[in-house]
């Protein structure tokens, strides 16, 4: 058994496995788009081949970058991401065809290229995720700036009641999407630095140990500001995600269950307050609880039409779905962004939606595996934080669509139309790949210079020391060892 284990744990790059899976992923992603054209009896124009070529080229380029720069990175992340992204593009294209309006798909493809290239550049330049640790407090400041940006008059703009957009002139952007990366970096860096202080110092009240205010202070300031800004912006989804990220990182860093209970109590209080005081949130809860009320269904603004149509879509899909291009997901408002799960549920059925959820689960487990495998606390917390960001987004979106929780409107990672979310998620993938590279690579450092030298206190040259207190000198020192000792 131990022998097999050793074979298993020997670091292997496994880039070949990645290439094979990546090709399969490309077949699925690209095939889905062609399937749309076939089913909807659209002519397959040269534009299809161009888009296919671009998409495949970007995916393969990413693979090559990994080969060159992060040889030991996790081999499963890229194929999963490419599959999801390809499926998303196919579905957005399919909805373009039936809506007949301004096509969204070229923009999504453009953003995919931009995001993947940005991720490659990040991977190439950063090399080691631990360098982000130096940016702990800078990233806190950056997060706050990003979160406040949409509130600045003239720059921010409000879409559907949520003031989370920044108008850049040529495009609009959701800074909160990038904010989740910087906030995760801050939480990870801060907790990696002060974990022990938080755990050990402080007064004990009953069974619970309260940390000192100054230890936890920056964390709570970050949290209150993040939540506060988001409540002002009327964006419930992101505040749930930030809060979840905060709780998860805190729990992983300290493994104190009591704090999670305090956190959940805070959520409950905050949630009740929000429902009572913020009309936007109260409306969402109404829609959630009484979706099938005719009065609420027919309400002109903020009615339950979207959710109910989404549910009908899911029901229409049944077990195997209507086939890509065969259903009517276009009846649901925002079918290509907030409601894209409902669109997939209708056209791919439970089997297909289950596969998509399984891909998310696998992606989540790979993120967690990167965190488990890496040896530095910062990398662990960073990977776990990103895993939580991913899984919370999926949960919030899917929960909203299936009426498990009130609808909030987050972007489904990699699937939904939306450039900023795509960019943020690709950057997260790049960072997690760096963490997993650090986790899986063998410990082979260059010949280390003797940091102390012979004159340093308490040390002597091992080459001279060795014979005196070991039995006969084992063997002549090997070259590299001698080099290290000299």
């Amino acid at each position, binding site marked *: 058994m131990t022998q097999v284990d050793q074979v298993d744990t020997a670091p292997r790059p496994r880039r070949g496995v990645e290439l094979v899976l990546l090709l399969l992923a490309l077949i699925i992603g690209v095939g889905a788009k062609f399937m749309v054209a076939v089913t909807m009896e659209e002519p397959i124009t040269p534009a299809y081949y161009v888009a296919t070529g671009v998409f495949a080229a970007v995916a393969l380029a990413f693979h090559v970058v990994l080969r060159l720069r992060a040889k030991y990175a996790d081999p499963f992340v890229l194929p999963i991401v490419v599959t999801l992204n390809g499926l998303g593009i196919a579905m957005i294209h399919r909805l373009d065809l039936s809506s007949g309006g301004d096509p969204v798909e070229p923009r999504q493809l453009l953003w995919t290229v931009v995001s993947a290239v940005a991720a490659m550049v990040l991977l190439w330049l950063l090399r080691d995720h631990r360098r982000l640790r130096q940016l702990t407090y800078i990233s806190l400041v950056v997060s706050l700036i990003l979160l406040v940006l949409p509130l600045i008059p003239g720059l921010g703009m409000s879409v559907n009641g949520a003031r989370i957009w920044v108008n850049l002139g040529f495009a609009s952007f959701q800074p909160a999407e990038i904010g989740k990366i910087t906030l995760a970096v801050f939480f990870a860096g801060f907790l990696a630095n002060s*974990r*022990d202080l938080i755990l050990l110092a402080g007064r004990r009240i009953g069974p619970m140990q309260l940390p000192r205010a100054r230890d936890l202070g920056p964390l709570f300031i970050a949290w209150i500001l993040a939540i506060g800004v988001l409540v002002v912006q009327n964006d419930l989804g992101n505040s749930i995600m930030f809060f979840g990220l905060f709780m998860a990182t805190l729990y992983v860093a300290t493994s104190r269950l009591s704090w999670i209970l305090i956190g959940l109590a805070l959520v409950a209080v905050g949630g009740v307050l929000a429902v009572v005081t913020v009309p936007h949130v109260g409306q969402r809860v109404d829609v959630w609880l009484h979706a099938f009320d005719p009065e609420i269904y027919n309400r002109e603004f903020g009615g339950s039409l979207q959710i109910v149509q989404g549910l009908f879509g899911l029901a229409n899909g049944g077990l*195997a779905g209507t086939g890509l291009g065969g259903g009517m997901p276009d009846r649901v408002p925002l079918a290509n962004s907030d409601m894209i799960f409902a669109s997939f549920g209708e056209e791919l059925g439970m089997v297909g939606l289950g596969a998509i959820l399984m891909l998310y689960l696998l992606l989540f487990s790979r993120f967690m595996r990167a965190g488990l495998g890496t040896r530095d606390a910062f990398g662990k917390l960073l990977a776990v934080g990103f895993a939580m960001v991913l899984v919370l987004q999926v949960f919030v979106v899917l929960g909203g669509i299936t009426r498990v929780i009130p609808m909030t409107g987050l972007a489904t990672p990699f699937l939904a139309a939306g450039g900023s979310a795509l960019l943020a998620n690709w950057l997260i993938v790049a960072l997690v790949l760096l963490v997993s590279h650090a986790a899986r690579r063998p410990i082979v450092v260059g010949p*280390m210079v003797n940091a102390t030298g012979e004159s340093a206190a308490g040390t002597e040259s091992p080459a001279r020391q*060795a014979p005196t207190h*070991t039995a006969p000198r084992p063997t002549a020192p090997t070259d590299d060892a001698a080099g290290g000792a000299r």
Partner: protein
Amino acid sequence: MSELAVTVLQFGLLLLLWILILSIVGAQGRDLMVSKKSRASTAAARSARASSAPAEERGSTSTPHAGVQRPRPRTLAVTDGPLAGTTLELGSAPIMMGRAQECTLVLDDDYASGKHARLFPQGSRWFLEDLGSTNGTWLAEEQLTRASTVEPGDPIRIGKTVLELRT
């Protein structure tokens, strides 16, 4: 295209999706079984240490394996402290341990110094050397004053962290 062909293609897509998932799961193998493996190897090491305990009473000049070329231990395992359960594959390069981020093994331990100790190979053995740390490095209950050999199973204590070499 005929309706039948379209239906077959649609099912083909679903099938491909699940093939992708199954091949990912298959290719992962036992990659996710972290805890079980490390638990098993810890238990194995513990029993090995117990059986070799009498042998450790021996004088420092008469090793039973003297002269016999043994393979150098290849794993460094953390048995106690914040990083307990971590294992590190050793190559032929020296390992620096401490809290500093540039160390090979970054110890998440408040009682460790930035660059605390160094482990380096020499022939078939590993040598441990304290790098002038504040709280000292302990090898088998003795504080290190100079570089010494580390046998597999000898506990190396740095702050609250205990490490050992395994073959």
